[in-house]
């Protein structure tokens, strides 16, 4: 099934919510890819907080395609509590701003990550620009 490109989505659009799991294998691969040497020093088998954002983003990209050439301009993140390896979470997101100028779209997307009991785990807001029309 094809999914819409982010540049096509209007302000107020709710992206399909997705569950995701911070599986041990995925966390291991993430930590290796970013070479995080600090999280292992924190007691509690926690995942790097940016891993939550990265995997939530990956889940949400199931519902909205990032056009080729998209550029990440800014990011806000709030980590409500530490998350342990193996936790199952839920990501939801919405387009909160959209503008277009000279063939480029500027979009703001807010994202919430919650635990199985509905409690907040992470909030975020990303700003990105991309070619209008999903140019490749």
């Amino acid at each position: 099934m094809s999914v819409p490109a982010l540049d096509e989505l209007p302000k107020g659009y709710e992206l399909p919510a997705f569950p995701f799991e911070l599986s041990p294998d995925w966390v291991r691969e993430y930590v290796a890819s970013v070479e995080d040497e600090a999280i292992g020093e924190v007691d509690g088998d926690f995942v790097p907080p940016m891993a939550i954002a990265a995997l939530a983003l990956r889940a949400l990209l199931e519902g909205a395609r990032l056009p080729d050439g998209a550029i990440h301009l800014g990011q806000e993140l709030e980590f409500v509590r530490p998350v342990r390896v193996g936790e199952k979470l839920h990501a939801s997101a919405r387009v909160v701003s959209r503008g277009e100028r000279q063939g480029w779209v500027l979009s703001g997307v807010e994202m919430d990550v919650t635990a199985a009991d509905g409690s907040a785990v992470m909030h975020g807001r990303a700003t990105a620009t991309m070619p209008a029309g999903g140019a490749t």
Partner: protein
Amino acid sequence: MTLAVGTELTPVTKEVTQAKIDRYARAGGDGNPLHTDPAFAATTQFGGTIAHGMLVLAYLSEMLTANFGRAWPGGGRLKIRFKGPARPGDIVTALGRVVREEGGVAVCEVECRNQRGELLVSGEATAPAAGEGA
């Protein structure tokens, strides 16, 4: 752990390579060819591949974990702007300094720079000043 106002955070330095960018793309599920396809990236304003912004932020986050311990994943906030791209071959250093304390929260100016001193990321991070530590 508590860090006094004026404290320079212990920096984190990483070398960016195309192999690391490709590995992050697979882990993060972000296959934007701007990061992974040199031929496509050569046609863009950047003239070549660049690292994912979230990869560079992972270095910043590692620095904050190293300095604040559990207080960072357990109550940290980050607000940044990307100022320039990190490219394969760059040596990226994440830096920070505690600039004030507000209601038990340490407020830090944070940034990432490459080996030429060019600013890649700039912003502010906060963490509970008296967290449980590592």
